[in-house]
């Protein structure tokens, strides 16, 4: 167990990191008549500023310090900083990628395309609000505001999922909004029960029972029956949002039908924010309800296996990646839910890594869609020659997600295996390793068919296919480089991961 001497530093960064994109969103709408370039410029500047702030926050808490603002209402420790870093850096790369992708997706003279082009200011505003609300969820220390922020991420992203406003997008958008809102209502009930129970202990005064950092200290005084109800509600609520089985059915539809930059944010970032909310709230009960940890590992193992089995039978590249996200969330839950330092370290490392390689893979598929107009594996083939950068990046992402050395996924999965074995859960190790093999099959098979195999309609496709513009491949190359870098030098993220893992394990100890 790691003991932490917490240094609290008052800072404006926790507020600025979510207020800047939110205000920028209004700025985009205010200048909507200035055209597409205005929206793109403001989005890039605001998300870029957010990325710089995310890096500054991570640097500030690297040694274990905690940033606070608004009288401890906002509190950024290493765990929050890790999530802020993911939201801001991946968010910026997704925004850069979206510039050319969305120009292409809205270009043309058809009535549907003209409507899409008119909605672009709203697209940019919603993307910025989506980023802002995710950052807000990561920095707030107030349990009710945590719920409000997570729900706000659904509200800001619902119309993004349905952005193309055709039959498929509307169906996906409706299911996304409805299922997540129902789920998150359970989380509200859970948050309220936690607050009420913490207040009833009599150990906290005034509004302190709302502050997660304070509730942790009195969680052991909460009756186990009440804690169990709260945990169940939080698990249903935030678990639905995180795409954990059996609450995952919304995920493949939404992640596949959304515009690709939004898919990147949903699969690469949003589900991590939900898992963060789950870990942040449920981990405070690990000491009083140790059985939760076994349940979490069981649920994680079930999620990882179900997700990869469903991914194996997909013909649509984006749906395949979406089901693979379900599977990878299972790994993260199994690690974090274990309640040990090593498990939390592995789970959080995989959370960071999955944000990188899943964003990369979605961007690669988006590039394929951009170049060919389809995402069905059977209609594709032999793209490696025309799209060498995309092909290489996809291979890096596929190897990384399958846990192949020397990429980052290997290190985080290995840590999770070791943590599970250390706890004597050999059955979980066996399923996790088997799932990893299936993941390799699920990702390498489409890689071969899309980029190397002879296409079914090769003669019909003609010579129109070529590599995507630099604005799209540059973010992909950055993410691929990070996957390799974190695989070769996993200690690069140690400062954040160590303190974040100690925090979760401390709650569990």
């Amino acid at each position: 167990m790691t003991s932490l001497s917490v240094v609290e530093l008052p800072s404006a960064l926790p507020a600025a990191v979510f207020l800047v994109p939110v205000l920028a969103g209004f700025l985009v709408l205010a200048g909507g008549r200035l055209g597409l370039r205005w929206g793109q410029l403001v989005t890039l500047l605001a998300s870029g500023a957010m990325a710089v702030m995310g890096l500054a926050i991570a640097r500030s808490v690297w040694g274990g310090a905690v940033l606070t603002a608004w009288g401890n209402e906002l509190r950024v420790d290493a765990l929050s900083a890790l999530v802020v870093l993911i939201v801001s850096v991946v968010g910026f790369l997704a925004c850069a990628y979206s510039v050319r992708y969305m120009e292409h997706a809205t270009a043309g003279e058809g009535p549907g395309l003209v409507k899409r082009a008119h909605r672009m200011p709203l697209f940019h505003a919603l993307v910025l609000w989506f980023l802002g609300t995710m950052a807000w969820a990561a920095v707030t220390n107030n349990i009710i505001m945590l719920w409000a922020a997570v729900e706000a991420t659904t509200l800001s992203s619902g119309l993004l999922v349905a952005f193309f406003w055709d039959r498929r997008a509307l169906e996906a958008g409706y299911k996304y909004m409805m299922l997540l809102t129902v789920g998150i209502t359970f989380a509200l009930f859970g948050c309220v029960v936690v607050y009420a129970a913490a207040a009833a202990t009599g150990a906290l005064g005034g509004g302190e029972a709302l502050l997660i950092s304070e509730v942790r200290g009195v969680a052991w005084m909460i009756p186990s029956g009440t804690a169990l109800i709260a945990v169940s509600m939080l698990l249903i609520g935030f678990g639905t949002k995180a795409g954990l089985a059996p609450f995952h059915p919304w995920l493949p539809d939404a992640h596949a039908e959304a515009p690709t930059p939004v898919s990147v944010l949903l699969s690469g970032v949003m589900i991590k924010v939900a898992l963060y909310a789950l870990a942040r709230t449920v981990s405070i009960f690990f000491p009083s309800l140790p059985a939760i940890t076994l349940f979490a590992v069981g649920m994680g193992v079930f999620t990882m296996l179900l997700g990869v089995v469903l991914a194996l039978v997909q013909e649509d590249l984006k749906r395949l990646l979406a089901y693979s996200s379900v599977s990878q969330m299972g790994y993260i839950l199994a690690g974090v839910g274990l309640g040990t330092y090593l498990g939390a370290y592995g789970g959080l490392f995989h959370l960071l890594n999955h944000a990188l390689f899943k964003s990369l893979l979605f961007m690669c598929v988006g590039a394929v869609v951009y170049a060919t107009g389809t995402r069905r594996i059977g209609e594709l083939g032999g793209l490696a020659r025309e799209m060498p950068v995309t092909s290489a990046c996809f291979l890096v992402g596929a190897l990384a997600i399958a846990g192949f050395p020397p990429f980052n996924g290997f290190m985080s999965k290995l840590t999770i295996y070791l943590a599970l074995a250390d706890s004597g859960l050999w059955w979980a190790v066996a399923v996790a390793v088997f799932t990893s093999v299936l993941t390799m099959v699920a990702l390498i098979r489409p890689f071969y068919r899309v980029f190397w195999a002879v296409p079914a309609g090769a003669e019909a496709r003609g010579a129109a296919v070529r590599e995507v513009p630099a604005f799209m491949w540059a973010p992909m190359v950055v993410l691929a480089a990070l996957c390799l870098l974190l695989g070769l030098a996993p200690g690069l993220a140690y400062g954040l991961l160590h303190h974040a893992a100690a925090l979760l394990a401390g709650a569990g100890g």
Partner: protein
Amino acid sequence: MSALPISEELVRTLSLTVVITSVLTVELRHLRFSAMAYVVQALLIVALLVSYATVNHALYWWAGTALITKAVLIPWFLFRYIRRTREMEEPPLVGFGPSVIVAAVLMTGFYRLTHSQVALLAPSALAQAEVFRTNLAVASTVFVLGLYSLLTRRDAVKLVIALCLLENGVHLSLVSLAPGLPETALFGIASEVVVTVFILLYVIEGVYREFGTTDTFRLRELQR
């Protein structure tokens, strides 16, 4: 008599009526009437909050927020979209007769269960005392009826109304569980529900235009 300056009889009457309006909201097939039952429930919740406010004055703010969001804004959106889509609900999974029986069983069973086991949900002495105990049992019952509606209805607009019931249950529970909740937090919760309902109905209108129906069972485009 209660030691608190609240008429227990009044609260019980209002609470019972809230539960009955939940059943009506679930069971009425005409969407406009179902929405009207929801409005009546919203007004009853406002009346309940005003009653509780005699003990906790902060609840006057809650009552005001509930009046604006639940009795004005959400019904406005609902009536507007019902007019633009269709007035009759798509046939639910459970027929009228069996559904009324199930709802009645859920209503009485869950009310009794939560009223007797309230300590599990509410560890504080205040929440376990009457009339807050009754309130929590009513809140849980409304929540369960909303959930029942969500699981057995297939009309998209009706599902939004069911979602509102679910939220009403949570909102009512706050009176017993979190009476000290700051107004800003409550306003945050209430306003998010309004925005959720607005966006959902906006998307449902798009679904209706594209698919020609609000029957969620006929949304099968993604299975092709």
